[in-house]
C-alpha cells in the first residue's frame, strides 16, 4: 500500500515539476501574471510530493518490507535500524530519489529567498529548476523506479553492502548531493538571466550566496568521502583519482572558479559571459558526474550497477539541458560587453589567473578520467589512467595558483598597487620559508624537493591572508562577513596544502609478518602484536587482533584491527584501527593468517592526515560565513532602474 502511494506521489511530483517549469518560463515570456503566481505553489507541491515518496520508501526500509525489490536488494532483517534508513540511498534508485529530494529542497529555499527578487526573474529561475526536476523525475519513473514490487516477496533481503554500513555513509551522500545539486541554482540563475536578456552586477550579487553555499556543501561532501575511504577501506589512502571521485572534484574546481568570477562580476561588472559559462559548466559537470556513475561507461569501485539504457536517458537529458543552455549562451553572450579597465597587477588579473588555472585543472582531470573512454571510442586501444598521471598534472596548475594567491589578496581592484604591499609580502614569505624548513628538517628528517615548496606556499597563503584582517582588528575596525569568510577559507586552503604536503612526503608504511608477541618498530614507535581472538557483531563475525603501541617504552595505544565476515553477503571487510598520537595518525590493518600464529600486518604512520579534512571543513565554514553577508541579500523593493556603478553597460 505505502509503496504504491510513494509511486503515486512521484507521478504527482512529475506533473507539478512540469507545471513549475512551464509556468516559470512561459509566464514571464508571455507576460501572464497568473501563470507566474502559480509557480510557487507548484514548487511547494512538488517538494511535498517528493518528500512523501521518500517517506514511503523509508517506511518500507524501516518496516522490512521485502516485497519492494529495492528494499530486498539493499537491506536485511538483521541490519541495524540506523543502516536500514541510510540504505535508502545505498544504491542507484534510492540515491536518485535523494538527489530529487535535495533539488526540491533547494528549489523551496530559492522560492523563499526569491521573494525579494524581481518577479519575472524569480519565476524564470524556478522554472529552470523545474525543468531539471522534471528530467530527473522522468528518468526515475522511466528507468529507475524504487517502488517496484517483488512477487512473491523475498523472504529476507540481500543486505546492504558491508562497506556502506558505516556512520560516514549516513552523511556523505546527502551532503555531497546537496553541493552537487546546489550548482543547479547557479545554473538556473544563469539561464534566467539569459532568457531575460539581461545580466548585471546585481545578478552576480544575488547568485553569489547560493553558489558559495553549494560550494561549501560540496567541499564537505568530498572531504567526508575521503575521510570515510581512509577509515573504511583499510589501505590508508584517502584519494584515489577514481572516476567517481573525479566526477565530484571537477564541479568543485569549476565551482571554485565560479565563486571567484562572480566576485569580479559583482564588483566591476566584468567577465559576465565568462561567469555565465562557468555557471553552466559547473552544473554540466555535476550532470556529467551523474552520467558517469550510472551508465557503465567507466570502470570504478564506486559505480552503481551499469545499465546502458539509463546511460542513454541521462545522455539525452544532458544534451537537452546543456545544449539548450549553451545555445542560449551563444545567443545572448555577445551582448554582454563591458568597457571597464584594470591594470596588469590588479586584483582582476589575479582572479583571471585563478580561473584559468582552476579550469585547466578541471580540464586535466576531465581528460584523465575520460581518456579510457575517448581512447576506446576512437579505436586508439585500451588506456588506463591513474594517480601517476593525475598527481603531477594537477600540481602543474595548483602550485602556480598557490604562489599567486598571496599576491592576489593584496592587490587592489583596478589598479593593483602591489608595490604598497611589497614589504608585507616579502616578510610573510620569509616567515613561511622558515616554517617550511623547520617542518622539513626540524620535525621530519627527509622529504623530496617539492616538500618545502608545498609547505612554504601553504604557510605563505595563511600568513598573507591574516595580515589585513589582523590589522583591521588591531585598529578596531569592523570586518565584513564576506571578508572574514574569504580569509577563513583561504586559511583552510593553506592548511590543506601543508597537510597534503606532509602526508605525501612523510608517510611511513610497512607490511610485516608477525608472530604472537613479536614486535616491530617504525618511526620511533614500537608495535607489539598480541595475537588474535574471534569477534562477533550484530550481523557479522570475524577475527580481531590486539596491537600494543609504545614510544620509548611509554604506552601510547592499544589498537584493535579486525577482519569481519558479514553473514548475508559473505563479504570480507577489513576494519583498520587508527589512533592519533602527537599529530600522527597511526594506522594498523590486519592482513592474512600466515599459519602458526603468524599474521601479516600493515602499519602506517601518517603525519597530519586528519588536518586535511579539518582544513576542508574550515574552507567550508569560510564559505558559509561569506555567504551569510547581508550585502548579498536583495533590497526589499526589486530594482527596476539601471544600477549605479554599472556604467559602460550596453543596453540589451
Amino acid at each position: 500500500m505505502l509503496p504504491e502511494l510513494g509511486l503515486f506521489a512521484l507521478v504527482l511530483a512529475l506533473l507539478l515539476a512540469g507545471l513549475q517549469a512551464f509556468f516559470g518560463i512561459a509566464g514571464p515570456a508571455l507576460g501572464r501574471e497568473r501563470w507566474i503566481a502559480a509557480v510557487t505553489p507548484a514548487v511547494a507541491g512538488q517538494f511535498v510530493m517528493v518528500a512523501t515518496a521518500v517517506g514511503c520508501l523509508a517506511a518500507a526500509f524501516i518496516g522490512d518490507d521485502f516485497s519492494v525489490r529495492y528494499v530486498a536488494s539493499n537491506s536485511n532483517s538483521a541490519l541495524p535500524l540506523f543502516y536500514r534508513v541510510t540504505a535508502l540511498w545505498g544504491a542507484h534508485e534510492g540515491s536518485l530519489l535523494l538527489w530529487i529530494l535535495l533539488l526540491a529542497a533547494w528549489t523551496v529555499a530559492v522560492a523563499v529567498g526569491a521573494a525579494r527578487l524581481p518577479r519575472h526573474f524569480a519565476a524564470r529561475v524556478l522554472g529552470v529548476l523545474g525543468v531539471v526536476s522534471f528530467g530527473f523525475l522522468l528518468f526515475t519513473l522511466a528507468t529507475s523506479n524504487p517502488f517496484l514490487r517483488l512477487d512473491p516477496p523475498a523472504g529476507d533481503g540481500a543486505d546492504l553492502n558491508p562497506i556502506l554500513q558505516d556512520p560516514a555513509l549516513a552523511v556523505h551522500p546527502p551532503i555531497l548531493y546537496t553541493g552537487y545539486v546546489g550548482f543547479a541554482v547557479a545554473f538556473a540563475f544563469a539561464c534566467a538571466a539569459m532568457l531575460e536578456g539581461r545580466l548585471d552586477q546585481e545578478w552576480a550579487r544575488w547568485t553569489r550566496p547560493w553558489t558559495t553555499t553549494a560550494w561549501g556543501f560540496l567541499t564537505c561532501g568530498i572531504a567526508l568521502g575521503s575521510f570515510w575511504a581512509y577509515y573504511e577501506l583499510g589501505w590508508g589512502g584517502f584519494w584515489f583519482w577514481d572516476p567517481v571521485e573525479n566526477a565530484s572534484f571537477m564541479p568543485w574546481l569549476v565551482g571554485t572558479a565560479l565563486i571567484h568570477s562572480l566576485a569580479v562580476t559583482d564588483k566591476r561588472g566584468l567577465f559576465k559571459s565568462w561567469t555565465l559559462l562557468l555557471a553552466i559548466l559547473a552544473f554540466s559537470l555535476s550532470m556529467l558526474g551523474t552520467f558517469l556513475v550510472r551508465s557503465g561507461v567507466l570502470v570504478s569501485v564506486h559505480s552503481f550497477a551499469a545499465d546502458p539504457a539509463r546511460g542513454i536517458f541521462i545522455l539525452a537529458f544532458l544534451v537537452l539541458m546543456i545544449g539548450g543552455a549553451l545555445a542560449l549562451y551563444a545567443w545572448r553572450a555577445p551582448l554582454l560587453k563591458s568597457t571597464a579597465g584594470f591594470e596588469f597587477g590588479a586584483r582582476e588579473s589575479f582572479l583571471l589567473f585563478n580561473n584559468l588555472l582552476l579550469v585547466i585543472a578541471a580540464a586535466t582531470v576531465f581528460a584523465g578520467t575520460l581518456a579510457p573512454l575517448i581512447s576506446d571510442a576512437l579505436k586508439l586501444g585500451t588506456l588506463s589512467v591513474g594517480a601517476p598521471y593525475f598527481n603531477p598534472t594537477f600540481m602543474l596548475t595548483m602550485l602556480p595558483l598557490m604562489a599567486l594567491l598571496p599576491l592576489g589578496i593584496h592587490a587592489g581592484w583596478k589598479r593593483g598597487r602591489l608595490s604598497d604591499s611589497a614589504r608585507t609580502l616579502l616578510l610573510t614569505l620569509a616567515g613561511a620559508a622558515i616554517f617550511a624548513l623547520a617542518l622539513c628538517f626540524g620535525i621530519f628528517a627527509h622529504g623530496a624537493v617539492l616538500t618545502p615548496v608545498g609547505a612554504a606556499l601553504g604557510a605563505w597563503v595563511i600568513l598573507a591572508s591574516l595580515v589585513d584582517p589582523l590589522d583591521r582588528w588591531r585598529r578596531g575596525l569592523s570586518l565584513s562577513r564576506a571578508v572574514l569568510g574569504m580569509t577563513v577559507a583561504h586559511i583552510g586552503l593553506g592548511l590543506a596544502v601543508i597537510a597534503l604536503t606532509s602526508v605525501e612526503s612523510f608517510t611511513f608504511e610497512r607490511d610485516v609478518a608477525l608472530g604472537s608477541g613479536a614486535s616491530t618498530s617504525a618511526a620511533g614507535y614500537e608495535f607489539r602484536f598480541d595475537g588474535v581472538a574471534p569477534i562477533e557483531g550484530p550481523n557479522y563475525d570475524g577475527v580481531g587482533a590486539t596491537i600494543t603501541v609504545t614510544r620509548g617504552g611509554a604506552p601510547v595505544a592499544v589498537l584493535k584491527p579486525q577482519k569481519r565476515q558479514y553473514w548475508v553477503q559473505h563479504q570480507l571487510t577489513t576494519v583498520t584501527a587508527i589512533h592519533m598520537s602527537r599529530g600522527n595518525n597511526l594506522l594498523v590493518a590486519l592482513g592474512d593468517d600466515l599459519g602458526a600464529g603468524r599474521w601479516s600486518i600493515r602499519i602506517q604512520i601518517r603525519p597530519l592526515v586528519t588536518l586535511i579534512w579539518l582544513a576542508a571543513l574550515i574552507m567550508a565554514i569560510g564559505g558559509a560565513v561569506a555567504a551569510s553577508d547581508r550585502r548579498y541579500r536583495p533590497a526589499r523593493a526589486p530594482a527596476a532602474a539601471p544600477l549605479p556603478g554599472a556604467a559602460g553597460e550596453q543596453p540589451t
Partner: protein
Amino acid sequence: MSRARPLRLSGVLAALAALALARGALAVDPTQMPTPELEQRYLALTHELRCMQCQNETLADSPVELAADLRHEIRDMLLAGKSDAEVRAFMVARYGDFILFRPRFTPRTAWLWLAPGVLLLVGVLVLVRVLRQRAALLPGDLTPVDEDAPN
C-alpha cells in the same frame, strides 16, 4: 557471464585466511627484498600496476590470488636483475596497456600527457591578450571603485 572468484568455506578462521573477496578486504604484503633499493623498486612497481581482477586496486593492495602471483613474479624478476622497464614490458605483453596506472607516452597517448601543458600555454596567451585589452581600457574607465575593499 560470471567471473569466478576463489572461495573456500570451512570455518571462520579458515575462511578469513582464505582468499578474500574483492572490495573491503586488503592485501598486506610482507614481502621482504634483500636491499632497500630493491625494496623501493618493488613497492613502486606493485603500486603502479593494476590488479586485473579487482580493477581499481593496485597489485600491492589487491587481496586476490592473481595479484599475489603477480607480486611474486615481480619479486622474482627484480631478484633476477631485470629493470623496471622490463618488468612493465612483461606485464603489458600479457595484459595490455590496461595494467599500467601510468599511461605510457606513445603517439596514441601523447595527447593526454601534452594536454595540460598545451592548455596552460594557450590559456596564458589568451589571458595576456585579455589583460592587455583591459589595461588599454583603463584610461577611459571612470567608474568609481573602492579599490581597497577586499570584496
